[in-house]
């Protein structure tokens, strides 16, 4: 129960941060990605602000045995920079550039009740489930020069 409340609180903080910074607005995000147009660097400041807290917090947690209310830290296990990572990140980038939504802002934008938010999240979920059906082959790490 306590962990659910913490997750809810973290979600609220995250949602507030996305709205205050206006990252929930695809037009604002596209203005960041449009480097040769009327560039709006706000998104870079958002990431810098987030890392200002997350970086030392993650460093400190990495030196600890366990979190406050759980048995262990659920650290990601993948290590290799492989083809899937490259292909996935690039496809994500294309979709992000086409619409201006990434997963967090798209879900948070439900608060604005726009039909396009729901369609976008439905399409995202469908795309993710298709990717999950791909065979879990062990892909080779990219050569260092790539």
């Amino acid at each position, binding site marked *: 129960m306590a*962990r659910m409340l913490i997750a809810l609180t973290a979600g609220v903080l995250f949602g*507030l941060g996305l709205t205050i910074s206006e990252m929930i*607005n695809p037009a604002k995000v596209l203005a960041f990605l449009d480097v040769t147009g009327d560039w709006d660097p*706000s998104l870079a400041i958002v990431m810098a602000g987030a890392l200002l807290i997350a970086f030392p917090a993650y460093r400190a947690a990495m030196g600890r045995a366990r979190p406050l209310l759980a048995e262990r830290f659920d650290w990601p296990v993948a290590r290799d920079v492989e083809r899937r*990572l490259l292909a996935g990140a690039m496809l994500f980038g294309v979709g992000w550039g086409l619409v201006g*939504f990434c*997963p967090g802002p798209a*879900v948070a934008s439900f608060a604005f009740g726009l039909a*396009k938010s729901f369609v976008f999240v439905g*399409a995202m979920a469908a795309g993710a489930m298709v990717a999950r059906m791909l065979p879990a082959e062990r892909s080779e790490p990219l050569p260092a020069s790539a």
Partner: protein
Amino acid sequence: MESFTPIAALIGGLMIGSAAALLLWVNGRIAGVSGIAWNLIARPREDSGWRLAFLVGLVLGAVIYRLASGDTLVVTIEASWPVLTLGGVLVGFGTQLSGGCTSGHGVCGIARLSPRSVFATVMFMSTGMATVFVVRHLL
């Protein structure tokens, strides 16, 4: 650069970082929205309570801001329906394939100095910029 909003961006960023720190320090979990959402949908019986709570909170945070700010923020989604749908499929497929999005790779992964996350963030940022360049300035 007339639309640059550095103060709001910094405050929002600090809140996002605090959310990631809270989830990690107390629950031991990574605040990556794509991972949280796709695991919730694919494995709804397994460890789903906190994931659902986080996503509900995400929407609730935006609702609270709307109410508190007197509805001044406008969300503009310019993409046409077909482009919106294609973009959604690509974002879902790509984040599942690469194991993270702007929050999981871009904030939490970089905070861990994970080579995978640094690489993924550079790739999706540059591909996103290239896509906008093609759509806005070439087509």
